[in-house]
């Protein structure tokens, strides 16, 4: 409430800094940042949260979040989070990773952090492409999708099929919560926020490894308008990467 008695129904979360971001129009990273910031505010954990930024489009996340954030080498956020959380179990530690970071160069780190049951939260932004480096094929790129390094469309015979990270990690005993949401509609975005909140709450309550995957648009390297990018998530991506809570050990 302000002194004038006006009622705010929507405002910048305290966990986000009041600065413009460098994200392209229609990019999903800004929305995921906002969801994380809202959740951290709602749980009242801003002052004991440490984020690990990836190497990828979200590399500058420490300039946008209003809490402590560190860099990590490409793919290593789960290892950095492990070191941090183990020496300071009182902190809320999360990694924020793209699909190149988490599902290609960082596969060993994510699998072993999950398998050890590290008490961390992982936010996995799956846009099916390497955004930062100019739209190359990612492990999650759909079959037939044309990218800078799969100009004739992704060919399964050569590259294997897109990796389903949630389904890969869920069988590991160390994981307590695995869910996949999407940013294509307001309804899905609200559900995704619920997943992310649960993934942070789990850590607050001392549970083990939680990961939420967000199917996120990259209009720039999908070569689509922002609107068509959202439509593509519903029409092409969700059928391959089904939404929902894949594992909840609570």
């Amino acid at each position, binding site marked *: 409430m302000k002194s004038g008695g006006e009622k705010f129904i929507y405002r910048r979360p305290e966990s986000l800094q009041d600065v413009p971001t460098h994200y392209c129009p229609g990019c999903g990273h800004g929305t995921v940042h906002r969801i994380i910031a809202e959740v951290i505010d709602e749980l009242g954990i801003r002052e004991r949260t440490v984020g690990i930024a990836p190497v990828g489009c979200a590399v500058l996340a420490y300039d946008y979040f209003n809490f402590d954030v*560190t860099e990590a*080498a490409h793919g290593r956020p789960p290892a950095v989070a492990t070191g941090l959380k183990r020496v300071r179990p009182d902190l809320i530690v999360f990694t924020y990773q793209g699909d190149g970071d988490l599902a290609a160069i960082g596969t060993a780190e994510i699998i072993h952090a999950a398998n050890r049951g590290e008490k961390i939260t992982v936010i996995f932004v799956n846009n099916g492409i390497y955004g930062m480096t100019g739209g190359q094929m990612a492990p999650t790129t759909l079959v037939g999708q044309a990218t800078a390094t799969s100009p004739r469309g992704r060919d399964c015979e050569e590259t294997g099929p897109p990796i389903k990270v949630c389904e890969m990690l869920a069988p590991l005993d160390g994981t307590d919560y695995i869910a996949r949401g999407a940013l294509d509609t307001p309804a899905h975005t609200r559900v995704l926020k619920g997943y992310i909140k649960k993934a942070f709450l789990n850590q607050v309550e001392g549970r083990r490894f939680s990961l939420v995957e967000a199917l996120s648009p990259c209009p720039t390297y999908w070569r689509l308008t922002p609107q068509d990018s959202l439509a593509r998530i519903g029409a092409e991506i969700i059928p391959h990467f089904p939404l929902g809570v894949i594992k909840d050990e609570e």
Partner: protein
Amino acid sequence: MKENTTIEPALFCGNEAIGEAAIQAGCRAYFGYPITPQNELTAYMAKRMGEEGRVFIQSESELAAISMVFGAAAAGERAMTSSSSPGVSLKQEGISYLAGCELPAVIVNMSRGGPGLGNIGPAQADYYQSTRGGGHGDYRTPVLAGASVQELADLTFLAFDIADRYRTPTLILGDGILGQMMEPAVITHPEPTELPAKDWTLTGSRGRPPRSIKSLYLGPGELEAHNRKLQEVYRTISETEVRWESLMTEDASLVLVAYGITARICREVVFRLRKEGLPVGLLRPITLWPFPDKAIRELSRTAEKFLSVEMNFGQMVDDVRLAVNGNCPVEFFGHGGGEILTGAEIMEAARGHLPR
């Protein structure tokens, strides 16, 4: 080096001595991956860190281990990892990030024969990698090279202090012999030195503005300024942290330069040649970076020749030549591939280089 009259010496191998010293130095977290010849250190930490209620993780790789060190260091805790040559190659990614992010950490390399998988014998083939930064970017790391089990322990205390004082990853460089040989050592924490407050750690932003730790500088001139700041720190380290030991160099015509286990053998060589009346001395760098170049330059005014003796095919000899700067000849003797140099062959080489 330090006084201690109360504690009886106990037998340690070099790897264990480093582990015990690290624990006494307040190392809160250790991350390692198995590799010979440093496995005793990982095993020692597995046992002792658990007993102390501290953090031990056998990581999935050296890439992960050094990144775990990064995380613990970002929280302001003393952290260490250890490995041997092939594993230290993998750690270079993280060492470069630690340097760029100005994070303190201690990295142990019990080096072995290379290149590639090489073998598990002792070697000094990682001198270049250790003293030139090792990873990408324009940085250096202090490198401490002990020559006995006792000294490895003493240097471990020093490594943590140097790392914290200058906010830099700091290397302890040994080899397969130093890591595994057993000697009596007294390991007790030296008098604590005053270190700068850690006002940069990520511990949650309660009561202060949020902080970030990063090595990315995109604005015009920002990375240049960051590099200048790092270079300033390296200059200070070069001026204040150089350590070496000299043996009978004052009147020596031939000065052997050797570090680590090779220096241990050279010391014996000097004693024996001196018994024959031959004017030989030894300069033993303890810090490989910063290199004792002033001490060597000083000696090059009186000595007639230097002989760099190394368990490799000639790496440190470059630094000796740079230090001597043409004042007198600098020769090399050594070989590598996991085989130790013998006293007899070093004596033979030294005799051949003595002015007749």
